[in-house]
């Protein structure tokens, strides 16, 4: 019952976040100098006639007061109408829909690589001798600090140019997905693993770990069966960071590996001042963020019994 109330409350907050994001982007667009009608018609180079501009202004409510424009915008959003892309001349939802699969696949593949890697490295290296920890931690710091495109380049040089195991880019099948996913995964892993190991080391000092070992449990089972759940709770709060890394990283990775996807769409839309698409992508990111946080929140209640009863 408490859980249901929590979910409803969370959803309500999520709607608020989305509304906030929509309002902010609307304000940003409203305040950008320049004639929106001209932009819609393809910029000054398109040399539209005065009548077409006037036509567009009235179609897009551009002559109405701010509050009417805002209400119209929210009303459209509410009906799922994000408007039409200036550049592609198709509805924004369609433009995003065409690209979301590729990016979703990339992000999922990166997550599938990053989480087990983080888990294994952190569990095996926590509380080990100093040189092991220094080595592992050194690698993690380098990965966390290196810009994504440099990691991508390095992987390309080793695995595509030198070893020629994987193609240098494109969207063709599984082998083209490996390097981009690995690039994204390594960037996430560096930070996540550092935090996870620190948490594990704190947990492994707790008396209940000693109790478990005093019952005859071996070292690795103690880590996996007792310590991991405790260490995972604070690490899960980093999910926001993970989502941001995956979304932000996809812009770079999709460009670097010349892949299709939301990242590539974002970049093209920004270059062409394709505002409806940019707004759509911002709202999409906000929605992803809200949903991920809701899932994490539910995971908390699954992992930690105190969250429900408290």
């Amino acid at each position, binding site marked *: 019952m408490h859980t249901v109330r929590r979910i409803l409350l969370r959803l309500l907050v999520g709607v608020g976040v989305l509304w906030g994001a929509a309002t902010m982007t609307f304000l940003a667009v409203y305040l950008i100098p320049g004639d929106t009608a001209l932009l819609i018609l393809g910029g000054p180079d398109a040399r539209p006639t005065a009548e077409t501009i006037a036509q567009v202004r009235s179609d897009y409510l551009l002559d109405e007061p701010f509050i009417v424009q805002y209400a119209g915008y929210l009303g459209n959003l509410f009906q799922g109408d994000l408007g039409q892309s200036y550049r592609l001349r198709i509805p924004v939802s369609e433009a995003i829909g065409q690209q979301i699969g590729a990016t979703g696949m990339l992000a999922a593949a990166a997550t599938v690589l990053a989480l087990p890697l983080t888990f294994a490295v952190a569990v095996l290296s926590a509380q080990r001798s100093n040189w092991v920890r220094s080595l592992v931690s050194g690698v993690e710091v380098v990965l966390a600090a290196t810009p994504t495109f440099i990691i991508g380049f390095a992987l390309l040089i080793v695995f595509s140019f030198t070893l020629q195991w994987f193609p240098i880019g494109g969207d063709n099948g599984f082998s083209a997905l490996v390097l981009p996913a690995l690039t994204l995964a390594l960037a996430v892993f560096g930070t996540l693993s550092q935090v996870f190991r620190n948490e594990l080391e704190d947990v492994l000092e707790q008396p209940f770990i000693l109790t478990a070992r005093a019952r*005859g449990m071996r070292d690795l089972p103690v880590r996996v069966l007792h310590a991991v759940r405790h260490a995972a709770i604070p690490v899960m709060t980093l999910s926001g960071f993970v989502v941001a890394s995956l979304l932000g990283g996809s812009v770079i990775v999709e460009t670097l590996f010349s892949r299709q996807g939301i990242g590539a769409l974002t970049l093209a839309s920004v270059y062409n001042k394709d505002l409806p698409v940019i707004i759509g992508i911002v709202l999409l990111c906000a929605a992803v963020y809200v949903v991920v946080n809701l899932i994490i929140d539910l995971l908390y209640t699954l992992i930690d019994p105190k969250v429900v009863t408290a």
Partner: protein
Amino acid sequence: MTSTTLQKQSKAPAASNRTGPVVDIQNLTVDFGRGVHQRRVVRNVSLSISPGECLALVGESGSGKSVTARTLVGLTGHGAQVTADRQTFNGADSGGWGERQWSKVRGKDAGFILQDALSSLDSLRTIGKEVGEVLRLHDLFPPAERYVRVIELLRSVGVPDPEVRASQYPHQLSGGLRQRALIASAIAAGPGLLIADEPTTALDATIAAQVLRLLGDLKDSSTGMLVVSHDLAVVAHLADRVAVMRQGEIVEEGTMEAVLQDPQHPYTKALLAAVPSASSRGSRLTGDHGIAVEPVETTAPESASLETPAERQVLISVDEISKTYPNGVGAVRTAVAGVSFELKKGDTLGIVGESGSGKSTVARIVLGVEIPDTGATLIGGRPWAEHRKQKDRRARRSVQMIYQDPLHSFDPRKTVRQVIGQAVTAAGVPRAGRYARIVELLDLVGLDEDKISSRPIELSGGQRQRVAIARALAAEPEVIICDEPVSALDVSVQARILDLLADLQHRLGLSYLFISHDLGVIQHMSKDVLVMKDGAILERGPVATVFDAPQHDYTRQLINAIPQLPTTRHFPATKQDGTRS
């Protein structure tokens, strides 16, 4: 873990050898760290425990008692170097055992009980799963029967409704039930050795007494038991033999009776003398303090003999205060219900009660950081509300507080100078005089000037508490509220802090509101006492009256729960060598 006797051929022990000792170690030495960081925490310790025997290992923190106990089951900790001339477990040479051999023995042949079951049980797993883990790890019962066995175990250690409790999580159980569940998990496999490390330290007195009785019931002819404690009185009735440890060595060993009646080593004598009680009232607990004092009647305020109590100034008057908190599900929890008392100049009023009795809330209301729902607190004859309205800093300064754990009441980044300096500044001392005032305060609490640039973490528990007292004194208060000021301290350090508080009262004419769960401390320190339970005062009066002729059942229970040394004799304080708090 390494050892000089690396005998890999010794496999897991044969079926337990009931004739010889369960464990036998000779000249055990444990070092942590290497090179310049090497610290020897246990040196040349020899002990053996036979089936049916209970050995107590008694010592203060840092004495190496817990490390010794853990080494018996190969859990010394990482980075430890263990050497011993002989180390056997159930007759088998365990000196060179690795993780594999030990893991077969732990839980099955040796059970381990730690203090504070809240952190010693996995908070994310149910009680039943925790207790059943031993059976699962050692494959003891068919999986289908394990649940039944877990329920039986929980029932046998006195957990009511074991079926319900088995499906609950540690935080849903009371401290006493948790400790029982932890004991159930330790005895689940019927081990021949039971090690209990401070099994009652985190518990309220009445609960601790029950757990001690349970441990006593677990003693039988085939089980060897090792009880580790900082408190001789706790283990006095449980153990057959006692070994007193200090700085990694056993300084005295013998039957419990012999050691209690006729301690040989000065340290044992000092330990026994340092225990505060009714009979130690008015005398010093330690013999080596720098301040020269009269041998008796140090706590009796001079003014008492000069004026009648009625004439002395009432500093704090608490009138029918009540406080409730919302409990999260719509209802309220009553923390304090209609409490009234007065504190006069130079007096010590003790408040005794178990956790949740409302004593700390009373302290916070008197301190003025919590506002009661009803009733009033008068400081110097005027209610807090008035002082607050007029932003009267003098009233705020006249009541100060000392907490149980000064480590957490100090900003860890600040030095002693900054900690006390802040209080000195708040007291309105001009900049030029501040340093001298800080040094003066440090001297007052028996700390040298060279501690002035230390940070809290660099000080010992006793030194930290001295700094906390100095900080409280900086405001030149009339009243100091002491909330469990010595509960986190070793008995010898506790003795020094209690002596210091008594000295300060004598010299500065302070009044104390002294809160403790420890009746011995209360009896030693206070003139009058309030017994609190569930937010209300059950009984009040002069200490001697309340404790000698308790009117209320609960008070009687509390008194019966005090672990008593078999002798009532108060050991005179003797000179101690070394360990300064």
